[in-house]
């Protein structure tokens, strides 16, 4: 295991990401709500570059107390990143696949030191 430099923390604003090529494969590093998250850039579906798609909040359905459908909206709490090949969505804070919680991307440890961000891989 080695620490691999990703970026200066200040150089990554919220919503930014970097793709790091390592001898373990590519790793996507996201900054979200101030924290950093790192996942294997390989979709659980067919191996697409899962970390290279759009960021989009989870879609939720608005069901009233009387069980009637009132429309859809975006979650204010749960952000997803989406594999650009087929649309597989992952929770940016956990790497868990939105369509089946048994599946998730391999997560990598983040180390922040002296204003620098590293992944351990």
């Amino acid at each position, binding site marked *: 295991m080695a620490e*691999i430099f990703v970026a200066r923390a200040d150089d990554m604003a919220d919503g930014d990401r970097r793709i*790091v090529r390592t*001898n373990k494969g590519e790793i996507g590093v996201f900054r979200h709500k101030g924290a950093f998250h790192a996942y294997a850039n390989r979709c659980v579906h*067919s191996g697409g570059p899962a970390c290279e798609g*759009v960021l989009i909040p989870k879609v939720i359905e608005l069901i009233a107390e009387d069980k009637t459908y009132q429309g859809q909206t975006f979650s204010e709490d749960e952000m997803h990143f989406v594999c*650009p090949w087929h649309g597989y969505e992952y929770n940016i804070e956990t790497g868990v696949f939105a369509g089946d919680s048994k599946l998730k991307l391999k997560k990598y440890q983040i180390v922040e030191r002296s204003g620098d961000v590293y992944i351990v891989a």
Partner: protein
Amino acid sequence: MDMPNNEVRNLRFDEYHSGEHLRNATKQAIERKYQDFLIVDVDAHHYESEHHREVFQYIESPVIKRMALESFNRGGRSSFLGGEVGYQDIGGRVTRHWLRKHEKTPATPHKDITTTLRWMDAMGVDYTCLFPTPMLFLGTHPQPEIESALAQAYNRWLCDRILAHEDRIISMLYLPFNDPEAAYKTVKEFGGKKGVVGFMVTAPRYKPVHDNAYMKTYRLLEEMNLPLSFHAAYTWGDQALKMTNRFIGVHALGFMWFNMIHMTNWVINGLPERFPKLKVMWIESGLTWAYSLMQRLDHSYLMRTSDCPSLKRKPSEYMREMYFSSQPMEVPDDPSILEATFKMINAETQLVWSSDYPHWDFDLPGVIYDLPFLSEKSKHNILGGNAARLFNLPLKPVKKIPNVD
């Protein structure tokens, strides 16, 4: 602490390359040694609407040609060809749909040749049967003469601008099925053209395949030894499908629905008995529909042979002699279910792999290559051998898989 020369890159959403988009697919192609055997994609697409200005020049009728060109000039405010409601890109989540406008290509060959070869090589494909995209919905156009005019123009454009210049791109040309006479003339005109390996009917339409008006076309195809395929699609205009309220519903059902109807009519009207040498292929409905329909029709047939007196065997036995494209291949958690489906359709000789690239639910060759229950020989047959026999293609691989680190 290790500080190796790891490459760190930013993502860019203002550039695109069809090969780079499939970089991970190329790694799979190298790992699985696709270079060593033939892979044929029987169903992939381009966006012919990006070249409508070129295509419309081939329209024969001066009146329709003027309408088409004027419509093109007015852009989105015109609906000369109609359109289909939908959001295939899942609200922008499938990025190639909107990034592809940034792809840079040389002046020659034609842009669609360059981009098609890029993704073919990246994926490990030797030959691709190329189909249009918006035209998949043209069968529901209310004016048969518009369908016929555009089909003829597109087919001529495709032959002139694409197929004539690239051996690795082939096609089953669009049949204007709402005008049976035009369909017959289409086979006559294009049957011997370079790269034309058959003809294709877009499935969403309301003309039954057993209508007597089509018999001379089927006979001609049989005589020319050219396959007839039915390419699935959906239409949200269908009365039953209108009840679905999300794209996932209309797509999942629509892509099976029309092919199930055409297959049912094809078999119970005894067309396999009338045209025993005509090769028929069913495209982009996945596989579960066939597994189900074989059992449904067999079950009823045994009690109602009087409804289909031309049949000499059970419906499933005729269906098992047809060809099925694999995509979008359903992958159940239990592989034995898929294995049973393969057995049911006689996949060893009748299943032909397809990608449907670049559409939203494309498959890679790995959907077949990685199956645990297939022999190497079966994998090679399904990925390329069966299609090579059907289309009379050389067996030697010609792909050029790019290098990736």
